[in-house]
């Protein structure tokens, strides 16, 4: 079965954004882009909540065309346009969207359907609200986290309203020159 993996940049105290959605504290440099790019390009499905999806749509489709486009802009823009997108939204309509599936209800059933289909891993990019729903329904199979060297003090937490303990297995860790640590976990369902 395909796995749904939460891909998040977090502060040491577990926030994914500041109280006003600030993300300027998140360090993503050349070294991290190269590293995440490899795993991202192996995935064939990206999952977003509506808010993150709108941010992505605003930037990535044309990011590779700017004269100042970085290598990462060009590569990720190409990948973004190709990848199948799943968006969790109760309000969006899917008319006129290519290669995009909207899930507006029956989250567990719809996600499990996708997991049963043949394919690679499904990466959830950021999307804290959607991630909270997925975690609460036990639909997240792994956490691919980038811990930033900062205590934020307040903001949007990654983990919210969790009823039961979730056991994890640490697969890999990696340290980056900018002070970020990658922690790669899968959920231990035994």
């Amino acid at each position, binding site marked *: 079965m395909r796995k749904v993996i939460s891909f998040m940049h977090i502060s*040491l*105290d*577990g926030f994914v954004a500041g109280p006003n959605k600030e993300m300027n504290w998140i360090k993503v440099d050349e070294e991290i882009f190269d590293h995440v790019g490899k795993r991202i390009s192996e995935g064939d499905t990206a999952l977003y909540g509506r808010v993150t999806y709108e941010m992505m749509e605003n930037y990535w489709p044309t990011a590779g065309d700017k004269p100042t486009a970085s290598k990462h802009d060009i590569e990720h823009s190409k990948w973004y346009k190709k990848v199948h997108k799943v968006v969790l939204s109760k309000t969006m309509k899917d008319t006129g969207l290519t290669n995009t599936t909207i899930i507006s209800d029956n989250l567990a059933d719809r996600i499990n359907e996708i997991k049963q289909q043949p394919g690679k891993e499904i990466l959830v990019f950021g999307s804290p609200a959607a991630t909270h729903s997925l975690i609460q329904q036990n639909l997240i199979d792994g*956490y691919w986290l980038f*811990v930033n*060297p*900062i*205590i*934020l*003090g*307040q903001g949007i*937490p*990654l*983990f919210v309203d*969790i*009823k*039961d*303990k*979730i*056991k*994890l*297995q*640490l697969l890999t*860790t*990696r*340290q980056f020159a900018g*002070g*970020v*640590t990658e*922690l790669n*976990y899968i959920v*231990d369902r035994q």
Partner: protein
Amino acid sequence: MRKLIMWNVITLDGYFEGNQNWDLSFLNIVWGQELEKLSIEQLNAADYLVFGRVTYEGMAEYWTKEEGEIADLMNAIPKLVFSKTLKSAEWNNTTLISQNASAEIKKLKEQGGRDMYVFGSANLSETFVNDDLFDEYRIGIAPVILGSGRPLFRQGIASKKLSLVSTQPLMTGGVVLSYSR
């Protein structure tokens, strides 16, 4: 200058204790040779252990009944407990301080000497974070999301940029992240 170092093991969702006082069952997941070695190294390198009242009382109760190398070190090492309500501190080699914790720690840092460690003591630690007194943060992360408990870093704590010193994965699935100011 002496360094003030925070050492704690937390769950991935940031709790250093479960909902019940002293629910530290997640510690068992990560404990092993590597953390034992780290604990002994830290205790051998320290001049003081620093506690708030609640952690102090729990630690005193626990360690005075334990045996072994770590217990011997914990029981012998000089300890400071900051509390305005404790009347006496009976654990071996303890100094009870009721005055302003940050002021005392600043004085001790200026004295020079070996490191001071804070274990647990979330309320006291919050004061030290807000007053910018920690020189290092060593955080062991257990491979578990608990859901609820006592957070190490409470909402509203001062924002702090840190510098990553090392990442040490443990054979038990934990990982120790060390940061300096």
